[in-house]
């Protein structure tokens, strides 16, 4: 069963009708519905094109959070070989909201780190919906140190609503962990490449996305605050999330204009969840290219370029 977003409801109706016809035909022999069904398919395809060619920022947020969208674990399984998870922060716990370890990308050994949201109720709870605690950031710091020591590029896959707002997380230094993770990203003398695959939620995302190259999937979002959070603060009404999403300029397209996003990775028609393999392959192509760009550079150049890139941000606004 496909999960339809609220703006996809008309599409759900047409696709549902086509499906119904075909089920009916299978049950009663001699009944030919194909012509009618494929007419509906065609109508649905056109609707999909129309819906997705100009998604509003709020709709993009919904697509970015789509439960069937490929998650960190899907990318790791499909794009990397010999993935060897490395656990724990050597201090308190292993945070399951953050995946990390050694792996090969196109045979090259790398460190891969990412937020994992989970794909069903059980795994979502286990993964804490992709909201990391300090241990998650500290595990990442440890892995980045390892990458630096052994000269391995770091690939991060960002997909988080934000860092976890919990009692223990605060007591154990959520702020400090995020700050140190961002600091580590800026220090290491190896290529750091980040792909925002879904939601780039605030500081919890920055901690992994302070990279030489930041790519975003076409319908992913990256923001200082969720549209709902922004709406409830600035509009005093959480229902104004559409307006807030608009104002925040959180789409890959706007962030590309602001130079925060270096590259937009195209998604299959109807979003990454409609064709996971196509989305994953597009990420493979982008990663291959970005890694090739950075592989020859010296550690000190990589550090210098990374810093300069962030220092330069904000020099260009959105030219209206």
């Amino acid at each position, binding site marked *: 069963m496909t999960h339809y977003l609220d703006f996809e409801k008309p599409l759900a109706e047409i696709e549902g009708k086509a499906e119904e016809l075909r089920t009916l035909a299978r049950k009663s022999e001699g009944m030919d519905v194909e012509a009618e069904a494929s007419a509906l398919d065609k109508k649905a395809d056109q609707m999909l094109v129309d819906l997705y060619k100009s998604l509003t920022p709020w709709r993009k947020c919904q697509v970015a959070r789509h439960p069937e969208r490929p998650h960190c674990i899907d990318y790791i399984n499909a794009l990397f070989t010999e993935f060897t998870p490395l656990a724990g922060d050597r201090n308190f716990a292993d945070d399951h909201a953050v995946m990390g370890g050694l792996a090969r990308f196109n045979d090259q050994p790398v460190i891969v780190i990412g937020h994992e949201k989970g794909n069903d109720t059980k795994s979502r709870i286990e993964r804490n919906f992709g909201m990391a605690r300090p241990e998650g950031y500290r595990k990442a710091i440890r892995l980045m140190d390892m990458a630096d020591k052994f000269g391995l590029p770091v690939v991060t896959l960002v997909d988080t609503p934000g860092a976890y707002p919990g009692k223990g997380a605060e007591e154990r230094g959520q702020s400090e962990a995020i*700050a140190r993770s961002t600091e580590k990203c800026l220090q290491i003398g190896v290529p750091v490449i980040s792909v925002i695959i879904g939601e780039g939620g605030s*500081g919890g995302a920055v901690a992994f996305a*302070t990279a030489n190259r930041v790519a975003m999937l076409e319908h992913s979002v990256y923001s200082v605050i969720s549209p709902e959070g922004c709406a409830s603060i600035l509009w005093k009404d959480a229902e104004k999330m559409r307006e807030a999403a608009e104002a925040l300029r959180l789409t890959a397209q706007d962030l590309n204009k602001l130079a925060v996003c270096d590259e937009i990775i195209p998604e299959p028609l109807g979003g990454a969840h409609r064709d996971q393999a196509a989305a994953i392959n597009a990420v493979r192509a982008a990663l291959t290219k970005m890694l090739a760009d950075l592989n020859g550079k010296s550690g000190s150049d990589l550090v210098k370029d990374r810093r300069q890139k962030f220092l330069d941000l904000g020099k260009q606004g959105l030219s209206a």
Partner: protein
Amino acid sequence: MNWITNYVRPRINSIFSRREVPENLWTKCDECGTMLFHRELSDNLNVCTHCDHHMAITPRDRFNALFDGGIFVEVKVPEPITDPLQFKDQKKYPERMKAAQKKTTEKEAMLVAEGEIGRTPIVAAAQDFGFMGGSMGMYVGNAIIAAAERAVALKRPLVLFSAAGGARMQEGILSLMQMPRTTVAVQMLKEAGLPYIVVLTHPTTGGVTASYAMLGDVQIAEPNALICFAGPRVIEQTIREKLPEGFQRAEYLLDHGMLDRVTPRTQLRDELITIIRMLTNQPPAVKGDLPAPDETASQPATEQAEQTDKND
């Protein structure tokens, strides 16, 4: 010797032009309810003389009390582009900015200055919670970078007083990008081997806490300051339970190993001097009154002129 013209007059001007408090001579402490005479309160650095409650203090007032003789020179901060996203909620961002500027008589939410404390040269930066909640946008980022660069150029420690609700939503992703940008600034100091001391004041939250405000060599907080990433209300909504007394307050963080010290504002200056002089391997500070600074410690004439103009 024209230090009086260059330093003291602007300061005196600023005191008289900015702080005319004719009708409201009394402030009520929101903690204990005591009515405090303005003069008495400002002499005590906005700390209640009755219950020691630390009220907000503007960066300018803080610097006047911090630097020897109240003498400091502002460090110029590169202007960012205004309203980069053309942000509009119920109000336009430039309108909110204008209102904040009018209310505070300051340009933005951070003031950077150089001067001496106990004859120890430093650069200091202070965030103004009264200016749009002290929020960190591009200007604040530029201010911290400017402060770090100036500190490196002069080989001086940087003391930073944080106070902010977090990132400035009206600058969207560009406010979030101040987290890495300010972290680069901290790294500049680190590489130059210069002390970076953070004084966390009430409140310091969100992306500010999760970047430059948590990266100090020494982390000091003012008593009872709220210091957190996620605010208590958000946490209570998430975990659906009541938080313990004093949660996320300075003393609580000290207990949990997140701070070096909690120090009352009235003792901060002496403590900063002591710490900085040890970190920079200087002899103990000379206590007591100090003579006026001489010109050799002063700034290029152009900057003095700017300073004078600004305050006139």
